[in-house]
């Protein structure tokens, strides 16, 4: 399979995402592609990485959402390809209208970098083939505008379609914890046909089993299993 990481000016988790994908998807071709020259014609999985695309000027993700790369991403989705937006990449997907909602500054009003727990609430996506509903993953967050906003009807709609994928939770997996004030403690959502996942935590930073940070591999590696069972196209 082929996985491509889109590099916008100001992306800074592109190397990390590519490295983690190589670990998670043995045998896959993993490339970093500059946004202006993006070619997704042979791509199975496209990752929009974390960072500060265009310096987060105007709003996080707003300028990158106007990159010509977005048309290629939409075309990939239309032909059944998979798209994963991590942190700033999630913000780009939202600004591009590919995922619903909007982002505000964290409720604590500053940048947050720490490990959090997220509970898997849906597996209605090939991207979540490596996890089961109710699983609790320990993943790092690192963001300032991670307060994900949905209107109550939007939220109900997504919930009904099984598109609320990940929620922040306490260490026991049950208790409530919401580090950035997101609506419904939502940490990740799915696109309409489950081909797109946007998430604020960084799975690529938890793809390091040697030092006990491995839960991200269950997200990044999940796509491989489902692709092996039938592929994308």
């Amino acid at each position, binding site marked *: 399979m082929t996985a491509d990481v889109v590099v916008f000016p*100001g992306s800074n988790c592109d*190397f*990390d995402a590519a490295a983690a994908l190589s670990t998670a998807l043995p045998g896959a071709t993993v490339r970093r592609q500059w946004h202006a020259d993006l070619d997704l014609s042979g791509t199975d999985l496209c990752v929009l990485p974390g960072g*500060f695309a265009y310096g987060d000027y105007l709003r996080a993700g707003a300028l990158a959402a106007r990159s010509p790369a977005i048309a290629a991403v939409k075309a990939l989705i239309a032909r059944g390809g998979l798209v994963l937006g991590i942190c700033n990449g999630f913000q780009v997907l939202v600004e591009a209208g590919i995922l619903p909602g909007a982002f505000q500054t964290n409720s604590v009003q500053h940048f947050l970098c720490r490990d959090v727990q997220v509970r898997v609430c849906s597996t209605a996506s090939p991207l979540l083939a490596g996890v089961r509903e109710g699983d609790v993953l320990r993943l790092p967050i*690192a963001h300032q505008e991670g307060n994900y906003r949905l209107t109550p009807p939007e939220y109900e709609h997504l919930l009904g379609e099984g598109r609320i994928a990940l929620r922040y939770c306490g260490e026991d997996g049950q208790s409530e914890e919401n580090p950035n004030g997101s609506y419904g403690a939502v940490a990740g959502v799915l696109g309409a046909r489950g081909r797109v996942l946007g998430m604020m935590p960084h799975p690529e930073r938890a793809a390091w089993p040697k030092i006990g940070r491995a839960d991200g591999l269950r997200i990044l590696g999940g796509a491989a299993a489902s692709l092996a069972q039938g592929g994308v196209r």
Partner: protein
Amino acid sequence: MAISAFDPQALGLTPSECDLARALAGRELSELEWAILSVLWSEHCAYKHSRALLGRLPSEGERVLAGPGGGAGVLDIGEGWAVAAKIESHNHPSAVEPLQGAATGIGGIMRDVLSMGARPAAFLDSLRFGMPSAPRTDYLLRGVVAGIAHYGNCVGVPTVGGDLYFHPSYERNPLVNAMCVGFLRHGDLRDSAARGVGNRFLLLGARTGRDGIGGAAFASVTLREDAAEDRPRVQVGDPFLGKLMIEATLEIMDSLPVVAIQDLGAAGLAGAFLEMCAKGGVGAELWLGRVPLRERDLAPAEVLLSESQERMLLLLEPDAVQAAQAIARRLGVEAAEVGEVQDGEDIVVLQGDEVLSRLPVELFAKAPTAEIAPAPPPLAPPAPAEPRSCDGRSSLLALLASPNLCSRQSVYGRYDQDVGLRTVVRPGMDAAVLRAAPGAPGVAVATDQNPLKCSLSPRIGAALAVCEAARNVAARGAEPIGLTNCLNLGSPERPLAARQLVDVVDGIAEAARELRIPVTGGNVSLYNESGGQSIAPTPVIGMIGHLPDPERAIGVAGPRAGMRVLLLGRPAESLAGSSYAELAGVLPAPPDPPEYEALRGLLTLLVRLREEGALALAHDVAGGGLLVALAEIVTHTRLGLAVHLEEATPRYLFGEPSALCVAIAPDAQVVAAHAKALGVRVKEIGEVTEVAELSVDMPTEPHWALSLARLAEASRGDLL
């Protein structure tokens, strides 16, 4: 800043410096030339008062690939990898405009590391403020932390450590010392010496504007009462452009013959261009008219001296210029050809066809030095009688709650600590651990200095800073292989500060020699005073420890209940210079000098125990002493410790020794055997427990315990 004065002395040059300049030039200098020289020969650029003294620092060692004088020190870490590291101050700008001052401080040190051919991999920040109760401290602390987060998080370089102290002497002159660590392959090492007639200078990065003009000169005088009026001298950083510039610079260096490279920092384009030429001893032309400008009507002196951020100067073979510009353009960075190395020894500055200046390169090769007149060494005050007993439990809680010992989590929680996937151990205790790349060797890194100890004895305090930084990296099992230092002091024109300058250099030199750690460079920041009050002498040490296998550093696997708790090294023999002494009001005895022999044994032991995989955790006993160190282990690991201590005296519990650490091991016998072989004192004091509390038995004292929740609450701090 309007540059109009013809009297060179009004620009800060002394009469003898003016005479020297005229003699080297063979004529009177123009207004433009005086303006350049006044900046190049400022303390900030030229180290006039400290250059001779810095020669006392040992700078040689087997692992040193590049020592003092370049953008950063570079050390061999094996398998073809090297680490580049340097620490630098950005104090005065941060006093005036804390957010941009701190942001541009880390942007500046990042470019220094980049200029060695290294990819910037981590920041550490050593910060000093007045006491939290002082009216401006909160504003300054919040601004500085926001500035570091603003720049570091965006530019994609994690912040993995540093240190933070409060002391009244920093109230109006806070310190922001930023350290950057980068990794490179040996073959990618670069320097800044211009060479090769016909080679072209390429100015890469931001356009040149009016910001920061005269910044170097600003840094070379004491802060005025109305320092806020100096705000236009503070540069403004753009971390987004900084990120583009890193990638463009690395890609150009990777794919094209880059002959030399230097970042633009103090004294801007003039500083970088002239230093590159002077270092190579070559003549060159500088084409001012080709410098991309942010605003049209900049005077030549402003173009030369602007300290606009995010700029690098590269020297390329002429054939490579177009390809380099194409790389820059693709990545969204401007790159302009601004000069050429030429035959002869003249530096020629042109605006179009007009020659604005022609001077021999020799004039820029070496700034004059300035004499200092240190006061005689002060007599140590008699040691006061020490208290013989104390309430260990309540003293511990008071120390944990004090601003210099409470948790720093609220500070570093605002920094991205992981980006780049090199951070093996995050900040929080002793030293962070970085790997150069997956499967590659790495380093443990820490910064240290204790204002209280240094104010009581600059010399011993400086030596102890080296010792503490060495213990910090050794607590991860790393061998200290090099240090960078930033000397922050008051005006060298005053005998007391001059004495302190000599003393801190001598203290670092002594400790570096005793521990065989080369000093690979650093920075000197003088004139740190305001309203006639000088800061406590502040020699900040940035330590690099070598780890062949960083993923097996001490502490990565972590302790478990049932493991043994040991003390390695020598307990404190007095309270001198300790936080407890300050709390108990028994200052001002100077701290005890370092016990080098014991420390050498301890450092060697920790490296060996890491090699053997014999330790699950090690934690240096430093600020606050032994009980504080034990409490920190509980709050950090969220496990319990049950210990039986040998003594209940204040000095044993709260003294701050120079060669002691707490270690946690699955098997105490293994540790004891290695300690014995190296002559290191070892004492088993207890075990790790499931119950998350610190439980303490001492002779002659009733047993007590403090829960994790109680300890965490006491040390919460709420600094931000």
